[in-house]
């Protein structure tokens, strides 16, 4: 909502407050002032000029040489506008003038001809192009013939004005009108509100003699008022009206349309004007549309109507979509002589639905949607009649055609002063509460210590005692509220074990060298299931903004890998990222099964200390180590089983298993996937983090630190390339007996010194007895059993 302060002063005394100060007061009391706009934009030296003569420039087709009377003198100005003509009153920026945007006017020569200033368009005065009347949109603006030559344009045409731009919350529909803002400012400044005085001559003929009205949808349209005005002359509106509309962000058209818009801005009540003769039937019928019925609206769009949409008809065919937009078939034009002015109360839900159906939002629909004031419907129609009789020479037919079933009762809210103070945590005196309510123009009575408040219908946001608390608090001042803390007994607070462990996981991963990433949950059809541990039906948005963000992800890896590529494309070759977040699987009920996952993606060098000659590229085992460490941290006994997954290297992929359930995958990207993503060797991991975090761990009890030394024996084995270390380790463990405490691979050799198809793996075995120091013989005895078992499974001992 754009509020011209000059216009506002018609209704309320603003106490000569500087605009910024007024704006600040309004903001602090509840309606945010987003901007304070000086309409003059600091302009100077812009006057009314009279074009005495105008001839073509001999050297330039598009330029005219004008002799312009600017009051003090007649001076030559070159003008490039196509609509410049002799005899016009125009806006002249004199040499030395400053225009919005910082342009300074100087004397100049244009193609050899002197030019002492500039004849201006409205755009050059800082008015947005879309607000400039169509007739002047492509050229200079022509002032009314009675404008005083040499007078100051800024002062005379309301450009010495400031506009407050209000950022209205949906509850404050009352402030979508100048009168509504006047009530607000009146309450803040303790000033009275002056309503427009409505009086006009009525003709002897009645409106009812020319127009009949039928309302077939009283629920959607409980109040309809029509006035008939004849013998009007459609023309440009006077300057003051055009300027007020432009200040309010409305483009002037002609006096009839401008009056309906003016009253809309003034009262917040949308009006519509029909050309009576084009209606053709002398009848207005409000009804629901027939399914499939057509109407061409004022924006020249042909629209198909549905049965739930409300239309205004002439008894035969639709002439407007109620509360949304008029029809082209009854539009007011220069030829119009008789108009029907409609002022109505359309039910908000109906208008909201219809405006949504057609993708049409107008100044009218946005007000109906939030609910107009039923007590302003009739005054707004009267006000329009008055202005049309004043500005268009119209003859107002007496009375109105009315259908009225709407309730205009004021809401009664009862609240006790104690209740207000206890909810606020402060003491506001009863007298002050009364004063605030009076300033708001809420009729208030004190009955048995209770405030009984009658809330005007313009304030439909006030329904319950808490609403009154807010009104009193905001006008008393939020700064006055003290700062206290809740007095209730203290609670311990804290994280759940799940949440605490999530933080442990993050700390562990970050300590291991991974950076936490955050990516989007919405993805494309193509990426939704890639790398998903559990593939379920995907979930699609009803109305996605793009295909790229249309489906809920089932794996974190696709986006995480996009982030890796983003970095490598910027020459950051080593990237190690992790992310925790939900994946969205089909659930049992209407909601999804949201599973918290952990994903890691790493590429490039894992270890890079090049001047010491240490460089280690990432590989499968880097990630396996991280997962193992994580398992140890969380007390989860994780195992790994060879597996395969699309887009992962078939020989370098393993599933992570917890308690017999696959809860994750580790793998190197398949070379073709790496290529597709423009990546070098990249390893990835994704885990069902929830499964890990939900695991209940046992309490920690320490095991005694060994009192006796352990002894170790190494064994190097020649094995077939396809025998897995874990298989051999199992053989060793089961043969080693209770003295064998630990088995560890310490060397792997697959080089060319080995026979084809063979590899050498070396294990270090640790023997230990908690009761005593082991003797060599005891160790040898146990170890020999291991060697025998190894030989039995075909492992060849290497010397």
């Amino acid at each position: 909502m754009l509020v011209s302060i000059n216009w506002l002063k018609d209704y309320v005394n603003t106490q000569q407050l500087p605009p910024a100060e007024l704006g600040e007061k309004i903001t602090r009391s509840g309606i945010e002032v987003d901007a304070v706009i000086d309409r003059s934009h600091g302009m100077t030296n812009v006057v009314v000029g009279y074009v005495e003569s105008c001839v073509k420039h001999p050297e330039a087709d598009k330029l005219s040489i004008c002799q312009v009377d600017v009051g003090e003198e007649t001076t030559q100005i070159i003008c490039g506008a196509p609509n410049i003509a002799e005899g016009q009153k125009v806006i002249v920026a004199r040499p030395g003038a400053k225009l919005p945007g910082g342009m300074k006017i100087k004397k100049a020569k244009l193609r050899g001809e002197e030019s002492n200033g500039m004849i201006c368009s409205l755009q050059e005065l800082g008015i947005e192009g879309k607000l400039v009347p169509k007739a002047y949109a492509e050229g200079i603006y022509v002032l009314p013939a009675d404008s005083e030559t040499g007078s100051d344009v800024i002062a005379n045409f309301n450009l010495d004005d400031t506009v407050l731009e209000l950022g209205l919350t949906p509850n404050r529909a009352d402030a979508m009108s100048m009168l509504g803002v006047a009530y607000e400012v009146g309450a803040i400044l303790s000033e009275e509100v002056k309503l427009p005085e409505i009086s006009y001559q009525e003709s002897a003929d009645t409106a009812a003699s020319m127009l009949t009205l039928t309302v077939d949808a009283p629920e959607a349209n409980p109040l309809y008022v029509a006035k008939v005005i004849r013998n009007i002359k459609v023309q440009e509106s006077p300057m003051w009206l055009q300027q007020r509309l432009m200040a309010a962000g409305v483009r002037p058209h002609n006096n009839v349309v401008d009056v309906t818009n003016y009253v809309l801005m003034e009262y917040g009540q949308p009006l519509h004007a029909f050309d009576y003769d084009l209606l053709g039937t002398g009848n207005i019928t409000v009804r629901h549309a027939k399914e499939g019925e057509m109407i061409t609206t004022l924006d020249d769009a042909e629209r198909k109507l549905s049965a739930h949409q409300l239309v205004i008809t002439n008894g035969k065919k639709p002439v407007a979509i109620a509360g949304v937009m008029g029809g082209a078939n009854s539009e007011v034009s220069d030829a119009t002589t008789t108009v029907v002015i409609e002022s109505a109360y359309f039910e908000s839900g109906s208008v909201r639905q219809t405006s949504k159906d057609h993708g049409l939002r107008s100044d009218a629909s946005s007000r109906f949607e939030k609910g107009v004031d039923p007590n302003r419907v009739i005054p707004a129609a009267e006000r329009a009649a008055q202005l049309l009789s004043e500005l268009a020479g119209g003859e107002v037919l007496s009375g109105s055609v009315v259908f009225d079933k709407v309730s205009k009762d004021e809401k009664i809210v009862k609240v006790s002063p104690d209740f207000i103070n206890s909810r606020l945590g402060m003491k506001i005196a009863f007298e002050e509460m009364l004063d605030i309510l009076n300033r708001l123009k809420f009729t208030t009575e004190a009955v048995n210590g209770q405030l009984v408040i009658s809330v005007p219908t313009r304030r439909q946001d006030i329904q319950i005692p808490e609403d009154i608390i807010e009104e009193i608090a905001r006008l008393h001042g939020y700064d006055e509220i003290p700062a206290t803390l809740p007095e209730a007994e203290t609670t311990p607070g804290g994280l759940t074990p799940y949440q605490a462990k999530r933080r442990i996981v993050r700390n562990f991963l970050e300590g291991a060298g991974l950076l936490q990433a955050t990516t989007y949950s919405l993805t494309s059809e193509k990426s939704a299931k890639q790398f998903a541990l559990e593939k379920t039906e995907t979930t699609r948005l009803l109305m996605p903004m793009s295909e790229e963000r249309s489906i809920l992800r089932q794996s974190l890896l696709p986006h995480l890998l996009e982030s890796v590529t983003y970095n490598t494309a910027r020459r950051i070759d080593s990237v190690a990222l992790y992310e925790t977040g939900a994946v969205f699987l089909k659930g049992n009920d209407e909601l999804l099964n949201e599973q918290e996952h952990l994903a890691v993606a790493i590429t490039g060098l894992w270890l890079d200390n090049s001047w010491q000659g240490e460089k280690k590229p990432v590989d499968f085992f880097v990630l396996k180590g991280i997962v193992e460490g994580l398992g140890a941290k969380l007390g989860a006994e994780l195992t790994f089983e060879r597996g395969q997954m699309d887009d992962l290297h078939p020989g370098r992929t393993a599933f992570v298993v917890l308690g017999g359930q696959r809860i994750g995958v580790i793998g190197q990207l398949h070379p073709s996937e790496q290529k597709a993503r423009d990546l070098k060797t990249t390893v990835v991991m994704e885990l069902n983090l929830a499964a890990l975090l939900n695991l209940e761990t046992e309490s920690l009890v320490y095991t005694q630190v060994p009192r006796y030394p352990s002894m170790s024996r190494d064994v190097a084995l020649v094995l077939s390339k396809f025998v897995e270390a874990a298989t051999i380790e199992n053989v060793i463990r089961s043969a080693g007996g209770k003295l064998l405490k630990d088995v560890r691979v310490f060397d792997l050799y697959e080089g060319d010194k080995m026979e084809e198809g063979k590899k050498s793996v070396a294990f270090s075995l640790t023997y230990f007895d908690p009761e005593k120091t082991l003797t060599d013989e005891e160790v040898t005895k146990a170890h020999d059993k291991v060697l025998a078992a190894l030989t039995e499974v075909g492992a060849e001992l290497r010397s």
Partner: protein
Amino acid sequence: MEAQLQELKTQALEKIASASTVKELNDVRVAYLGKKGPITDLLKGMGKLPAEERPKMGALVNVVREQVTSQLEGRMVLLEEEAINAKLQSETIDITLPGRPVKTGNSHPLTRVVEEIEDLFISMGYEVAEGPEVEKDYYNFEALNLPKGHPARDMQDSFYITEDVLLRTHTSPVQARTMEAKGGEPIKIICPGKVYRRDSDDATHSHQFTQIEGLVIGEDIRMSDLKGTLSVFAKKMFGDDREIRLRPSFFPFTEPSVEMDISCFKCGGSGCNVCKKTGWIEILGAGMVHPNVLEMAGYDSKRLTGFAFGMGPERIAMLKYGVEDIRHFYTNDVRFLSQFQRTEL
């Protein structure tokens, strides 16, 4: 013989003094004090002396031997120390070379902000509550006093999956769920999480972002308690000398509703580019829980009251760290993420 002994001593001491390495000195030791050395020879030759001279001569030889030995040992300590020093000297490294890097990662800046806020409220007795990101229309809107067709629903255009299920547009449904689950009992929670709105991504908008909300319900919770709580938060988060101010606002789920500004932490209130010359920065929205919301969740709004507040970690991170584009939080540029390693304590 005595002269011979003195001569020997002089020679030995000279050689000791001139020995410049441990090895040379060892050679001197062997040459003079060894089993085949001249002093041993002298002792061996004492048998030829008259018996009465032997004790005197023996004592003399021992004195000389001790003198030589002591000189030699003293010199040996010196030379050994020199040798060690020389060795250490040769082992000097260039300490200006870079250290072996410790591999470190760090949290995402949004996690950092969220955890900081969580910890602050945990210390004030709050629990952390979480809920689903795909939510029922009921919890996201209806239970929060936003029935179907409510004009405020336009404020947050949403991603629907079915007519009744959508991506939550705020973390408030967690409040609604918690209230329902608590069955009328007091509540003190903080709810962080991801939320989604139909916005085109640009420097200040993101279709996915994070929120953190708080909810307190109890007996006699007053608006002054909200103000006091937010004041503690502002000081902890943005500095002890921060002041707060509340401005009236509107949210369907609170009444009265407020927006909270803090005095600008950059200029202190005199006006700068961070606060757009106003001296104040808008940080969060809050209010007293609307009685309809309490009643819908089964609370007796006459007996229990509450306050709620909500803020955007993106906005806070942008203000705190001077980040100019919200998309940085979702691009995961390593050069951006790795800047959030250092502590600010």
